[in-house]
């Protein structure tokens, strides 16, 4: 479903990706790994451009609206499913029905007690989980995540990744934690210096196999 053929991309005038050829089929769970600056975010955005209407995106920055509650921030994920007027009413006064729909998502992410807390008052990990909740609530079948668990502890990270995997057919995650990458995906793409240095199924890979991506 995702196809790149000798794609290149630059960021701020600097070429970040060159000659990337890549195919991702429906149902795959892919980890993008590599040093920071290797081009993971750029590649993720490039893929997102291909299927904006089908894919939910978790950006690296949580991109929350600080003055709105966790509920509203998660509800933003469903704006495309409702009429504007309904959205407006729900902004002024949350509908009970919508609150009950959002609640299980937050429960799963361990945020249920924060449902009406303004996003600006959350800790870094809570903000990240709220951004994940917003993506989950979009109800898409594809999810693209840019370091979705970088700010939460290992225990929560597993819960979050499990939730992501359960809710989506196809998942592409940029990650820096190699252990988690191997545990939650079935294909690893390693980026180094703007091109693909490694593309293998997860099964049989050991963390040390990826060391070469992180050394000069």
């Amino acid at each position, binding site marked *: 479903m995702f196809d790149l053929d000798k794609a290149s991309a630059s960021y701020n005038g600097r070429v970040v990706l060159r000659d990337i050829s890549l195919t991702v089929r429906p149902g795959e769970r892919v980890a993008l790994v590599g040093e920071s600056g290797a081009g993971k975010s750029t590649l993720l955005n490039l893929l997102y451009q291909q299927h904006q209407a089908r894919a939910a995106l978790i950006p690296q920055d949580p991109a929350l609206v600080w003055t709105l509650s966790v509920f509203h921030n998660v509800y*933003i994920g469903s704006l495309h499913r409702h009429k504007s007027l309904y959205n407006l009413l729900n902004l002024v006064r949350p509908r009970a029905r919508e609150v009950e729909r959002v609640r299980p998502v937050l429960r799963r992410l361990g945020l249920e007690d924060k449902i009406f807390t303004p996003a600006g008052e959350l800790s870094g990990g809570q903000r990240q989980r709220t951004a994940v909740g917003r993506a989950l609530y979009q109800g898409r079948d594809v999810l693209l995540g840019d370091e979705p668990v970088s700010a939460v502890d290992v225990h929560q990270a597993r819960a979050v990744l499990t939730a992501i995997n359960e809710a989506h057919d196809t998942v592409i995650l940029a990650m820096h934690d190699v252990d988690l990458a191997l545990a939650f995906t079935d294909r690893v793409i390693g980026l180094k210096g703007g091109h693909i240095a490694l593309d293998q199924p997860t099964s049989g890979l050991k963390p040390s196999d990826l060391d070469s991506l992180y050394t000069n």
Partner: protein
Amino acid sequence: MERSGAFKTSLAFIGVAIVCLLIADIEISTLDPWREMGRMALGVVTPNFLAVGQLGEALAKTVAFAFLGVALGVVVGFASALLFHFGPVRWLSAFVRAIHELFWALIFLQIFGLTPLTGILAIAIPYGGIFAKVYSEILEEADPRPLAAVPHGASPAAAFFYARLPDAWVHIKSYTLYRLECGLRSSAILGFVGLPTLGFYLESAFRQGHYSEVSALLILFYVLIASLRLWVKARLVPLYLLAAPFFLGPGAEISLANITRFFTQDIVPHPIRAAETLDFAALGAWADWMWQIFTTQALWGIAATLILTQIALVASGALALVFFPLISRRFFGRFGRTLGHGFLVVTRSTPEYILAYLFLQFWGPSMLPAIVALALHNGAVIGHLIGRHVDEIPLRPDAPKGLNLYAYEVLPRVYGQFLAFLFYRWEVILRETAILGILGILTLGFYVDSAIADIRMDRAVFLIIITAFLNIGVDALSRAIRAKIRLTTTPERT
């Protein structure tokens, strides 16, 4: 980098002001101010609240006009802010806000007479133009990232209300409240031209030299302004708006004939009106008429207006830097701050016209009373805004105190902000120079006022248009300078 830009700009403005001071019309010529001053001082210490007959009514009307005018301005301004990327909307909003609310009132007096509509529109129209500009800037500066995270397929309206507006909301609210304070001042001042607000009685009492009455009215007004944050609550606003129309007093008949006459006769230039046919001779006479007014009034008016504005601008800035620590908890204890707040409320709420008259008694007629009056008023406004901002700056626990704190920690941090406020205030000062005709300073406003006094609306409108373009020019210059030295703006602009 940024500091040096701000520094050079400041120096340049100070340089311009000094040159202006050299050519400005300044002298000190009074002989016996003490008799009148003594009467004023006596008035200040013996405020007489009973002397003003309809005090409560005037107060209620002042608030009612302010609320309805500002509210209508908010609606118009917000709608325009959303369309601000269209050139015509931007130009129209620049034009309407370039005209002082007193002039709007004088124009609407011609059309609607002394009706509530005159007062409301005189506030709503210029405020709408200001809201349009500031709201659009606030929205522009809102965090853009949430908008990118909105799912594909959401309607632009939904995306705006969820991902754009909430981040800007707090600033919009605080700016609107600030503007409401300005609206109360404007509403009071509209009394000077006959609307039944506080200014009506203030001007009467003042011009008759009933200073006990004047001080009672001013005290009442200060209390109204100082307590604004106590009685204006978001929840109560709809209630106030609902109640406001009932306090405006009787509406008068609005005559279509008067409205038509204003547009088809009053503001049609005299040579055109007098001509039987619209031929070349008439057009020539019209051109001659414009040239006459331009060379004998407008050019001199522009020169005097700009000289006065540049000096008053720098003087306002200097005073603001002295004033702002007065209300900051970094510099003063609770008692000191209360005094500071009181001082700033008094200085920024006393109409410049009255301040100017006070100084006229001391120094005689020249630009001097005008400069001091404008500088005190605007210095207090900017000082108030900066002072509130200072308290929000996080400082390290071992920061120095007093003058060292001011010079090393606070001033460098707020200087950019300060300049931004001052530049916003630039066009305001320009507009305010209009109402100082009593000093015998021939600003553009003086000529506009003369044209209206002569019931020559054609001249008045021509001069007002020139004034508006001067304002738009200064506004554009201020924007260019702000962009050049990259001044970040924040919610509360003046």
